[in-house]
């Protein structure tokens, strides 16, 4: 019954305190988010329509909703509710009354505002970010965006503006509003690779192979997808070119047995994957072109799901079954310096945070026959091996994937036999379900 006290460092988000009890695993308390640093109180004004084009109202509605959603989801702002914002929506710096935004009830520290006009099939958005307290020189950002006058383009412009704001106010870390999530969906009847915007919009099918495809992994430059697919002679790691819209050769991934769970290094130079071609499932490493293939591990039992340390590209974490149920291990790129990170249960699907210091993975700490347990997402600080459970008492959770900002994690959650893709902040807050049609699994967040 000894209570455990864990102090957990998290990039950008200051400190999270978690009290948990070993015997009462169901009791969990989550206190003191963002200790030591207040979130910036940011208001996003409704943009002012400057044109009378009949499309304008619908484009403005999409733009406003997307911008508000992006800034809310960023995880670094305390967003001023629309109902607390001043009635007037300023379209230019001349029209804004900073005092109105600084006062109660808005109490904003920053305000994003601007105008939007559609004409001749083009949508033009003028966006500003003002520091409300710096009345002498309030402008932090002023930028013009143009694109086609379509709902998709209005969403894209809102994402760009949101990312520009997040980059300036979020410690120089790029926002993720323009990133994609690749995943597996059954909605056509077979498991194919699909893609969506980070907020669940714009879901569309990538592959049409009619087989079973698993483990999509997007290249750091967004040019290619590595994935595993079932053929007559078992599983092959295959490569789909998003530029060409078709499969391209990856000869290293085709051999007898199961070749699966690929991973890109952050520089795009290497691909690691699991292969049973030597008679047991091991981690192998190849150049991205498929050359220079060699084996890294030589451990009994399954060895799957490699992930590179994206900061150094010099380490790989993976799930290995050498002691029975799978545990998370790390090793250097030459196969040396093997360390075991988890001490019990069933731990799989590691994903390495962009800062190189944290791993997220799926862990069932009480896995075993007759033990229902719970399979949840955890985040571990690799240096100290301290960990934090970030999902609780909601379904079976697997395949966490870090977003490039290091603040967000995508994952799959199975409730009652239905699996969907969710995102959350890395401390487990702001959980959002992104998919609903069919079963959707194995999310992989793009690198940019």
């Amino acid at each position, binding site marked *: 019954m000894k209570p455990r006290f864990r102090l957990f460092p998290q990039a950008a988000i200051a400190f999270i305190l978690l009290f948990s009890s070993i015997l009462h695993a169901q009791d969990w308390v989550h206190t003191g988010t963002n200790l030591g640093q207040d979130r910036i109180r940011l208001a996003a004004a409704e943009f002012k329509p400057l044109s009378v084009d009949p499309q304008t109202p619908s484009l403005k509605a999409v733009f406003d909703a997307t911008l508000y959603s992006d800034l809310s989801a960023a995880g670094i702002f305390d967003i001023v509710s629309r109902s607390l914002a001043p009635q007037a929506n300023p379209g230019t710096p001349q029209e804004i009354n900073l005092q109105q935004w600084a006062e109660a009830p808005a109490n904003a520290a920053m305000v994003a505002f601007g105008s939007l006009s559609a004409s001749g099939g083009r949508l033009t958005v003028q966006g500003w970010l003002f520091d409300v307290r710096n009345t002498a020189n309030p402008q932090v950002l002023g930028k013009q965006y143009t694109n086609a006058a379509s709902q998709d383009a209005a969403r894209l412009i809102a994402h760009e503006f949101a990312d520009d704001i997040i980059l300036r106010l979020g410690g120089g870390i790029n926002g993720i509003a323009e990133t994609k999530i690749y995943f597996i969906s059954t909605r056509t009847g077979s*498991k194919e690779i699909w893609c969506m915007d980070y907020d669940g919009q714009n879901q569309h099918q990538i592959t049409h192979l009619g087989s*079973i495809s*698993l*483990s999509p992994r997007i290249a750091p430059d967004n040019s290619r997808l590595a994935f*595993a697919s*079932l053929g*007559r*002679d*078992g*599983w092959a790691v295959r490569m789909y070119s998003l530029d060409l819209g078709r499969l391209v050769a990856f000869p290293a991934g085709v051999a*007898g*047995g*199961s070749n*699966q*769970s690929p991973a890109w290094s952050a520089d795009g130079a290497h691909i690691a994957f*699991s292969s*049973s071609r030597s*008679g*047991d*499932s091991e981690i192998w490493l190849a150049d991205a072109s498929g050359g220079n293939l060699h084996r890294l591990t030589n451990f009994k*039992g*399954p*060895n*799957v*799901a490699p992930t590179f340390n994206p900061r150094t590209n010099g380490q790989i974490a993976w*799930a290995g*079954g050498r002691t*029975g*149920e*799978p545990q998370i291990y790390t090793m250097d790129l030459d196969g040396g310096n093997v360390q075991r990170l988890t001490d019990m249960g*069933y731990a*799989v*699907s590691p994903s390495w945070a962009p800062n190189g210091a944290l791993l997220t993975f*799926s862990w069932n700490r009480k*896995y*075993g*026959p*007759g033990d229902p347990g719970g399979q949840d997402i955890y985040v571990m600080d690799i240096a100290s091996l301290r960990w934090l459970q970030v999902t609780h008492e909601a379904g079976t959770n*697997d*395949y966490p994937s870090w977003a490039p900002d290091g603040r967000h994690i995508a994952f799959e959650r199975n409730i009652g036999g239905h699996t969907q893709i969710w995102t959350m902040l890395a401390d487990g807050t702001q959980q959002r379900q992104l998919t609903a049609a069919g079963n959707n*699994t*194995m999310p992989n967040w793009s690198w940019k």
Partner: protein
Amino acid sequence: MNRQFRALSFVVLVVVMVAVAGCNKKKASTPPATATAPPVSTPAAAPVAQITATPNVISAGDQVVLTWRTADATSVSIDGIGDVPTSGVKTVTPTESTSYHLVARGEGGSADATARVTVNAPPAVVVPSTTASLDDEFKAGVQDAFFDYDTYDIRADAQAVLVRDASFLVAHPDIKVVIGGYCDERGSSEYNLALGQNRADAAKNALVAAGVAASRIRVVSYGKEKPFCSESTEECWQQNRRAGFSLDR
């Protein structure tokens, strides 16, 4: 999916065959290969006749075994074959669909019976009927091996099964097999793919050790992608933790 498709096409084939038989011959009954004449109720015992053909659907050039039995008959003949003993077995090789019409005559009257053999020519592409019988033989002779939770060690019961499987395969050197590795629904898909591979490999190694040539065995892991059973119960999970055998075509 493949297995379901094969089963479906077999059912369709049988249905079509029954329909065809029904069109061609008024007297055809179900099953079409066997017809039993009702005994005529006269004081002198009326003959009784029965004839069957096995199999009743073949490809041209394949053999069919006719088996017939009669009672209270003095002379028995089959159209196209001639006089035959009152009961017997004969192998025939029909080249086209044939009704083997047996007539038994006795003091109490006569009785007849018909066995219909459908000959598929050219041989059916989807389901050659020879493999339908080979399938049955294979299913009878080769059983799946089951595993404990999160392991790929061959259990004692699975070892006994694999020894029997190996002796069947040794006795049928023309057969090639696929071993599918299957896992229950728990845990991650990626880990289960590797686990399923290890289970199928373990079964393959056991067969090779018992004298089956490795070149006759193909191994595919299905992990938890193609479960036999979808309940979240231990019975169902046990059904899904297996090395499953099927004919490799």
